[in-house]
Structures are given as structure tokens and as C-alpha cells.
């Protein structure tokens, strides 16, 4: 009787296993192989070559330095924003604005940030013009720092905000009644419970900066980072795949360490049995102070993006600044560019649809099946490991292992790559949502005559609807903005917007870059809005929770 019970889930499990063996394990092995094999057999000569050329070690040092520095800055700024929302009585509209504006950069590819920084702070930049002088030298460290901070702020903000939301605010009251000073109260009831999350935020931001390709591609200048070296080894003027593979593997190390540390930190998170809201102490000074700080931070970020809305609408920046729709019209009438946009949409929709299905299947196995613990551990392991692999490494792995195969120049390879690259987060979202559902549903439905499949359709899926929409939009937005992996596998016919932007940079066609970036932004906002609408319509009967 047990044998036949889980047949559907077993098929799903085997399918997922084969999928990740083919599109994850195998490609990774081929990178490793490339790094240690030459015409004569196994060798470490590639490693020696890369490490002895002093420029790589320099780039590695630069990467570690800038990533760590950016991660600290980001975490501090994100803390101010999160604190403003959770611990002050500032105006509700302002809070809403902070929530929205902080995560806005997520809707744009990182490569756009770089160009936006150049057009804001460069010699002829918008902000340079406004201030009458160049504020800082932007290529290299400063530019990278600014770009990385903008890139990682949304993620850090969401992490910190979430933990802060679940801190039991009653501890503030207890601390005050016990006679703690303001500073001490702040440390015991806010900073202490946040320590784990601070560390998590630092590590997460560090990982993102260290592995990002878009920002150094645009504002890196002479400040070499690992991502740049990797790109040049693989797609530069003198490609060397063996050395590239070595760089990829070295890039993997800090990533693996980061994620391992995150995993360990999870265990130290303080969990409160109960979240109780209290009335915050009235303090006009505090509210004003944090309002001003938040507005300053967000103004800085949004002003960088202002150029995206300005440059495409003027005749020729910075010389002729009269308003024109000519650039927009020109892009919209350029069939080559439009087809690239079409490609992006196509890839993103398919990634979202197939991705959601794979994630759903995987989460059903771990959260709602009686399959053996070993099967569940394998799925968990896949989620964990895919999370540690930087997009660039994955892209290179795909490029090396699918060369000469029929899928090499097709869309399928890009879609599959996105699917693997972004698997972890939606999987964890889906799993936690399925785990929260009543454990007896399947048994109850079976007693009412449902087959397993019918139960999934009639009961589980309708109740997972909101989460399914969320993971759909997660996949969609990420597929729209990603560049690091697919830069290595997008072919001439399968160009998507982000890879096209990289190409347009080469021809200095920045009007087109910004128009395309605007298209990505608008598309993402529209899709997000639609998903939000669908989700709200579904849950409008339920009491709305105050949650971002």
C-alpha cells in the first residue's frame, strides 16, 4: 500500500534530480575540469599562471576590500531606513515612500546603475552640472562603492526590516522600566536582537558585490576586480578558458564561505514567541531626525537614477538640452532593439512559468510528502548549493559544457540558466508557505475520495496561490535584470536587453541604453503591479496584515 502512494512525487523528484544533474552538477564539473586539465593531462599550471601574474592577486584584494567596505556602508544605511519604519512615529506616507523607493533599484539591471552614475557624477553629468563641479572621482573605488551600495541596499533593507518587525517591542518597555538609559535600552532591545541579522546582511551584501558583473563593467575603470578579470579571460580580446576556469573557481571560494556562514548564523537568530506591538514613546526630535536622514539617503539614490528619466528625453546631453521624444521614437522603431525587448519578455515569462513549476514540485517534496528524509535532504542540498554559485561562474559553466550542443544558441539554455541561478530564494519561500499549511489536508482529502493530484489541484494550490504569484514575479523580475550569467551564453539571435546594453556600451550608444533600461523598469513595475493586484484580489477577504 505504501508503494503506490507516492508515485507522482517520486516522478517529480527524479525529474528534478535529473534536471539539476544535467544543468548544474555537470556544468560545474566541466569548469573544474577545465581548470586542472591541459593537453598533457591533470595539471596545476593554470592555477600557477593565474596566481603568479600579480594583477590577479591585486584584483582579488580589490574585490575583497570594496565588497567588505560596501557591505558595511549598505548595512548601516539600511539600518537607518529600517529603524525609521519600525521604531519611529514618522508620517505614514513617508514610511510607505521609504518602503517603495528603497526597493526600486531591484527593478533595474546593475549595469544600468553604472551608466547612471557616470551620467550623474561624470564630467558632463547631470549632478555635476547642478552642483557646478565634479563631486568626486567616479571611476574605480568611489563609483563601485556607490553602485554596490545602491545594488545591495534593497536586500539589506528587507532583511533588517523583517527581523526588526519580529522583535518583540515589549522588551523596550521592560528595559525602560528597569531603569536603562536610552543608549542601553537601544542596545539591549534593538541592537542585540539584530546582531545576527547585521552579520547576515553584511555577508549577503558582500557576496552580491563580490560576484556582481554589471557595476564593474561600467564604472570599474582601472580598479580591477575579480568579476572583470573573469570576463576578460573568457570573452576578452585574448580569451583563455583554462585561466578563466581557474578564476571562476577562486571566485567560488568566498561565495561558498559566505553562504556557509549565513547558514550557521541562521541558528543564532533570536526567535520571539510572540510579537507584540506597543505604542512607541513620543519623540518629535527622533521622528524628525530619522525622517531627514531617510530622505537624504533616498534622495541620493534616486538622484542617481534621475538621469535615466532625463537623458533619453533631451536632444543631445549635455550640449542641447531641449526636450524631445526622438530617441524614444527611434528605439521603438528600431526593429532590432524591439526584438531584443521581445526576447527579454519571452525569456522572463518562460523562466517564471517553468521556474515556478519546478520550485513548486521541489517544495511539495520537502514540505508535503512522505518521501524519505534522504530525498528531502537532496532537494535542500540543491537549494543550498545553487545559492552559493555566483551567476558568472554558472554562466561560464554553461558556456563550457554546452558548447556544440543543439541548445548552445537557443533560448532554452538562457531560461534553464536563470532557473538554476535563482532557484534558492523562491524555493525557500514556497517551502515555508507549504509547511505552514495544515498537515492533515492530504489525509482528509484522500478520505473524501481525492487522488493525490486532485488534492493538489483542489486544496493545496488554491491555498498556495499568493506565494505562487510571488515566486512567479521573483523569477520574472530577476530574469529581466540579470546579466552576470547570461552574458556568457546569449547568442546573436538570443540577445536580451541586459546583454544588449553591454554591447551598446561598446558603441557609446547611451541614449539607447537608457531607453532600454526604462523599458525594463516599466515592464517590471507593470508586472509587479499586476501580480500585486491578483494577489490582493484573492486575499481581500482576509484581514490585511501590516507587512511589506
Amino acid at each position, binding site marked *: 500500500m505504501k508503494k503506490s502512494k507516492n508515485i507522482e512525487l517520486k516522478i517529480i523528484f527524479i525529474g528534478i534530480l535529473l534536471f539539476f544533474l544535467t544543468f548544474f552538477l555537470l556544468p560545474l564539473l566541466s569548469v573544474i575540469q577545465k581548470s586542472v586539465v591541459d593537453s598533457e593531462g591533470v595539471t596545476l599550471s593554470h592555477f600557477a599562471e593565474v596566481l603568479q601574474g600579480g594583477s590577479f592577486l591585486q584584483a582579488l584584494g580589490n574585490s575583497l576590500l570594496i565588497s567588505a567596505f560596501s557591505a558595511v556602508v549598505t548595512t548601516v544605511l539600511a539600518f537607518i531606513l529600517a529603524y525609521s519604519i519600525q521604531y519611529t512615529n514618522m508620517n505614514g506616507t513617508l514610511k510607505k515612500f521609504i518602503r517603495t523607493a528603497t526597493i526600486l533599484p531591484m527593478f533595474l539591471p546593475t549595469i544600468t546603475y553604472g551608466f547612471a552614475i557616470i551620467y550623474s557624477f561624470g564630467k558632463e553629468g547631470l549632478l555635476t552640472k547642478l552642483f557646478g563641479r565634479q563631486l568626486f572621482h567616479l571611476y574605480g573605488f568611489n563609483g563601485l562603492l556607490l553602485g554596490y551600495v545602491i545594488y545591495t541596499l534593497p536586500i539589506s533593507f528587507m532583511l533588517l526590516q523583517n527581523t526588526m518587525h519580529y522583535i518583540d517591542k515589549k522588551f523596550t518597555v521592560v528595559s525602560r522600566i528597569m531603569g536603562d538609559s536610552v543608549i542601553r535600552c537601544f542596545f539591549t532591545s534593538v541592537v542585540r536582537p539584530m546582531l545576527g541579522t547585521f552579520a547576515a546582511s553584511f555577508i549577503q551584501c558582500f557576496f552580491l558585490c563580490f560576484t556582481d558583473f554589471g557595476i564593474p563593467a561600467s564604472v570599474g575603470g582601472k580598479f580591477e576586480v575579480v568579476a572583470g578579470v573573469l570576463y576578460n579571460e573568457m570573452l576578452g580580446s585574448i580569451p583563455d578558458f583554462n585561466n578563466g576556469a581557474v578564476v571562476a573557481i577562486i571566485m567560488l571560494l568566498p561565495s561558498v564561505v559566505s553562504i556557509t556562514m549565513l547558514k550557521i548564523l541562521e541558528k543564532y537568530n533570536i526567535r520571539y514567541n510572540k510579537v507584540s506591538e506597543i505604542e512607541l514613546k513620543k519623540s518629535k526630535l527622533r521622528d524628525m531626525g530619522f525622517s531627514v536622514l531617510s530622505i537624504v539617503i533616498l534622495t541620493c539614490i534616486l538622484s542617481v537614477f534621475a538621469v535615466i528619466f532625463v537623458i533619453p528625453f533631451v536632444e543631445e546631453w549635455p550640449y542641447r538640452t531641449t526636450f524631445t521624444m526622438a530617441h524614444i521614437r527611434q528605439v521603438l522603431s528600431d526593429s532590432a532593439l524591439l526584438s531584443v525587448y521581445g526576447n527579454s519578455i519571452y525569456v522572463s515569462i518562460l523562466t517564471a512559468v517553468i521556474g515556478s513549476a519546478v520550485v513548486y514540485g521541489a517544495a511539495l517534496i520537502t514540505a508535503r510528502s512522505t518521501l524519505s528524509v534522504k530525498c528531502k535532504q537532496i532537494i535542500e542540498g540543491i537549494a543550498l548549493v545553487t545559492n552559493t554559485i555566483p551567476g558568472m561562474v554558472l554562466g561560464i559553466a554553461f558556456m563550457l559544457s554546452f558548447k556544440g550542443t543543439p541548445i548552445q544558441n537557443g533560448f532554452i539554455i538562457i531560461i534553464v540558466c536563470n532557473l538554476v541561478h535563482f532557484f534558492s530564494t523562491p524555493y525557500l519561500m514556497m517551502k515555508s508557505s507549504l509547511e505552514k499549511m*495544515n498537515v*492533515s*489536508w492530504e*489525509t*482528509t482529502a*484522500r478520505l473524501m*475520495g481525492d487522488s493525490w493530484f486532485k488534492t493538489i489541484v*483542489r*486544496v493545496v494550490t488554491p491555498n498556495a496561490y499568493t506565494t505562487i504569484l510571488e515566486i512567479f514575479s521573483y523569477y520574472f523580475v530577476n530574469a529581466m535584470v540579470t546579466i552576470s550569467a547570461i552574458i556568457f551564453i546569449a547568442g546573436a539571435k538570443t540577445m536580451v536587453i541586459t546583454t544588449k546594453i553591454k554591447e551598446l556600451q561598446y558603441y557609446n550608444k547611451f541614449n539607447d541604453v537608457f531607453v532600454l533600461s526604462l523599458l525594463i523598469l516599466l515592464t517590471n513595475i507593470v508586472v509587479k503591479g499586476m501580480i500585486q493586484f491578483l494577489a490582493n484580489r484573492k486575499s481581500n*477577504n482576509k484581514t490585511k496584515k501590516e507587512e511589506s
Partner: protein
Amino acid sequence: MLKLEHIKKSYDKTTILKDISLTIGDGEIVSILGPSGSGKTTLLNMILGITEIDEGQLYLDDKDLTNTPMEERGFNIVFQDYALFPNLNAYENIIYGLRNKPNVSTMEEVDELIELLELREHLTKKIDQLSGGQKQRVALARTMVMKPKILLLDEPLSALDGVIKESIKERIKTIARDYHLTTIIVTHDPEEALTLSDRVLIINEGQISQYAKPEEIIQEPKNKFVRDFILNQLEIKKNNIYSLFHTEMETAVAYQVV
């Protein structure tokens, strides 16, 4: 008649149940009573069919059901947390099984159940708009629509408070009587077990301590466990209540004497 013969169960060498044998008559309400960890829920799950029986036999009217899959046994259960489907409203939950087996109950029968359980005014409500007692009744109706041969109830009263508890108790009795339905209830509360059922199965450490009518248990507790844990608890409760109602009790007794 449900018959269990020498049922055994163990997980990873830990014995949960050892040698359970008993019979339950048609239309009887039987409570399985025991402290947590005594194996009472495992026993219920084995009767239902989610948990496999290691050793021993399970018969219904002399038909061996030991290896029959859960869905073919024709039993049904109301879980402790009800397991109602929140994407459906109360009525849709009640008729859930009719989609698969349209002929199991007629619309008149469904209507009768709704009437009996006083659910008429709650039918269009969402699950999270229902109170605990209402959820319990919806879950009961949903199960009854399937016309189970045996009704299993897992801690049916533990999530309910005071007055509701008593009214659901009556409801369960009514259903068992009206439908002549064998009902098996798991509980850890002696008062509940002894006031609700025709017979009580007391298990402790995987074995039957006593299986008897409530009055027999009170008058002739079979062993120390029954005396210490079951009777003692009731005794304390009784004394508390008596001391609360002290004067009234005396007058009541006085009247009775007269």
C-alpha cells in the same frame, strides 16, 4: 463490530503499542483515554489506516482490513485542528466529498446534517470567520456526508472552551445515536471520556489498563494507574466543585432526602 487482535506497533525499536486486543460494538461510542505518549493517537491512526500495523489483525464485521488502504476502509476522521480547507467556504467544505462520490449522500441528507449541526446561517462564511465550535461542526458535517462506517475523532473537545464543549459533546452523542454510528474518540481528559462514551479504553505505556463502562471504571478501578491518575483527577475536580457549591449541594441533598 470492530475487532482488534494482538495489535503491535514500534518505531525504530521503541515499542509504542504491545498486544492490544478489543472489540467495539456497532453504534458504540468508545473513548481512548491515556496520558500523552501512551500510544492512543497511534492506535487511532492504525484504525484509520494512515499508520501501518506491524503485527496483529483488524476486522470489521469479520472482514480482515489489516492491509486495506485507508481510503478503502470506509472510515473517516475529524482531526484535532479540523483540517478545513481555507480556500473553500463552510458549505463547500461540507460537500467536498460529493465531487468524488456524488451518490454517497443525497441533498436531503446533507440538508439534514446542516440542520442537525445548526450550520444553516454559517454556510457562506469563510473558514477563518468561523469560531472554534463552528469549525468543529463543519468538520463533523463534512465527515458525516461521507457516511463513514466508523467515525474517528481526534481530541474533538480540546480546542474548545467551556459551554461550547458541553454542547459539542451532546452533538456527538446525538449523531452516534441517530445514525447508529460507531464512534471512536481520542482524549486525554478523564472527565470528557467518562461522560461522553459508552465504554472507555484506558491505555498506558502501550497496554490496555482497563476497558470498561464508565461506571465500572469508577466503581472497580482495575489497577493502580487507573486509581492514581484517572480516579484521583476526577476526585480532585469533584471536591473542587463541591466546595464551590458547598451550601447549595447540601440543600440539594437535603431536598432529595425529603
